């Protein structure tokens, strides 16, 4: 079967899986999550949020606390050890075997399954071509660069045609430029393979680029599940809003459908109730407008040139300085008094956050 053939793996379901470690640390509160066949789900969150723990529970490297279940395609695999679950796992440190060369590493899972040498060689060659590491088959692991190692780790995990692909921060060990390049390749590869994939990362850009759905986690619990766009444009909480990208959090009274701010008024989309409200606005959703006639105004404190755009810090509009992203073409400097134009549809009310 060629690597691109439609074998989408299994559906995965975690039922009420919690995890308390032997030293008393509670890594995970009881969690339920369903992942469809062929779907790529990204577990995103800061370190210590439990995302790696879930991954290891799905893999079979950790057991959930009593009462938790892991199901592959409706079969209960909770008590199956990892060597019997047919998962493909890519570790953060890649965990390539230093006593074997690249080809032997990739073929190891096949060797364990008793696949004949000739067939093994053929499959290894397929994967080498798929991951773009031709010519490296006989190299030893310590002769490879970080990016090459990452590809070997992926090839090795995929070689056995796993039911689920599990990736634990596979790009974290690489430098920024390489990471971005490999992210694109990884995306292409995952789409081509189409296997159920669970991907753990703390990098929100990776999460948004690679996931069909993103599961944002915090302190052992799910903060929000949704598509990348849902999570970005409609965060469920302040935490999610601030973790997923830069966010301006504005807390003010809503009167007659607009937020009353020190620098003016911010009209909201229809149906906004009166009372205390917390709103989130992305920096790129705020535009600079002429001061006259603008419903909201402020003064530019600083301009930060980040290469692709300028990030302004504007004070006086809200009770805290606002981050505003403007294109490089617009000339603006510290001290300028500016008006701010914000599309009401881009203002997201965060439920239940008002103090």
């Amino acid at each position, binding site marked *: 079967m060629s690597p691109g053939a439609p074998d989408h793996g299994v559906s995965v379901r975690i039922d009420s899986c919690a995890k308390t470690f032997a030293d008393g640390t509670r890594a995970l509160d009881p969690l339920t999550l369903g992942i469809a066949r062929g779907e790529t789900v990204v577990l995103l969150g800061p370190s210590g949020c439990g995302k790696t723990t879930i991954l290891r529970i799905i893999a079979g490297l950790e057991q959930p606390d009593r009462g938790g279940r892991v199901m592959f395609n409706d079969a209960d695999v909770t*008590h*199956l*050890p990892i060597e*019997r679950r047919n998962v493909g796992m890519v570790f953060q440190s890649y965990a390539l075997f230093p006593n074997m060369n690249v080809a032997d590493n990739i073929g190891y899972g096949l060797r364990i399954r008793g696949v004949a040498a000739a067939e093994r060689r053929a499959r290894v060659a397929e994967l080498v071509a798929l991951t773009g590491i031709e010519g490296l088959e006989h190299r030893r692991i310590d002769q490879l660069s970080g990016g090459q190692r990452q590809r070997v780790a992926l090839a090795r995990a995929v070689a056995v045609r796993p039911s689920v692909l599990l990736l634990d921060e596979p790009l974290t060990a690489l430098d920024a430029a390489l990471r971005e390049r490999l992210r694109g390749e990884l995306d292409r590869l995952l789409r081509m393979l189409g296997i159920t994939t669970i991907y753990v990362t703390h990098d929100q850009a990776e999460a948004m680029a690679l996931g069909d759905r993103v599961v944002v986690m915090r302190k052992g619990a799910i903060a929000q599940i949704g598509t990348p766009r849902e999570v970005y444009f409609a965060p469920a909480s302040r935490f999610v809003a601030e973790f997923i990208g830069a966010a301006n959090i504005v807390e003010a009274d809503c009167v007659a459908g607009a937020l009353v701010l020190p620098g003016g008024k911010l009209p909201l989309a229809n149906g906004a109730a009166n009372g205390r409200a917390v709103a989130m606005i992305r920096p790129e959703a705020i535009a600079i407008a002429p001061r006259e006639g603008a419903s909201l105004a402020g003064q530019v404190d600083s301009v930060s040139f980040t290469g692709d755009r300028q990030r302004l810090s504007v004070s006086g509009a809200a009770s805290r300085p606002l981050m505003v992203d403007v294109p490089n073409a617009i000339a603006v400097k510290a001290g300028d008094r500016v008006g701010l134009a914000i599309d009401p549809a881009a203002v997201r009310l965060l439920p239940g956050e008002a103090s």
Partner: protein
Amino acid sequence: MTKLALWTRWRDRLIFAAQLAFTLLVAAFLIVPAALSMMAGATVNYFRGIRSGVTLDWIVQVWGLYADTIARSFLIAFAALAVTLIIGVPAAYALYVRGGRLARVVEEIITLPLAIPGLAIALALLLSYGGFSDFRRSWLFILTGHVIFTLPFMVRSVIAIFAATDVKTLDEGAASLGASPWRRFRDVIVPNARPGILAGSLMVVTLSLGEFNLTWMLHTPLTKTLPVGLADSYASMRLEVASAYTLVFFVMIIPLLIAMQMLAGWGAVQGSRR
């Protein structure tokens, strides 16, 4: 739970039990004779066992026969400690700071006595200094052998602590504040090397107390150490006396071993002779 999962769990438990049994067997091999000898040293009659009664008579007898060997062992051990401290700690500092090929060569040479059998070193000393009869007949002759053998442990231990605490940077800091080399050595280097000096000291004393191969060749009937006395007693004394003597040795050595383990975790005593 599936049958497979059940079988896996039982397989793992079986492997654990087998490994535990094996390890216990090995531990028994090592400990049982030691325990036997400690017991034998304190029972009236070894062959009748504990039923024959517990007694300190054998230990008293050992004391009467061999007290001088015990005293001499301590004397040599602490003298070796003093010598290795005085010549070893400053040298460790010099080697660490200088670095380079010279340091490597010197370290290599002082570590050689660990590789060369004690017999050979003793022979070498006898051939070179055996003619100086006063020296030859005194305990100082044995001391030189012990110093040569324990020196690398002190030096390596101190160099290790220097490396671990980046003493070079501390030294540079003190120098930038105007301290002379001697002041720096006294105020900064030595205090920060204390753990290494302590570990090295424990090793020197323990190794010296237990040293046999060198000492057997170098000793005279008037300069016996405890291990030499032990060899005598194994050959000529009844089992209970030999055991009591061994018991005394254990009592001396165990606190030192415990102190070393507590201080350094693992890997404390390496390379000692048999």
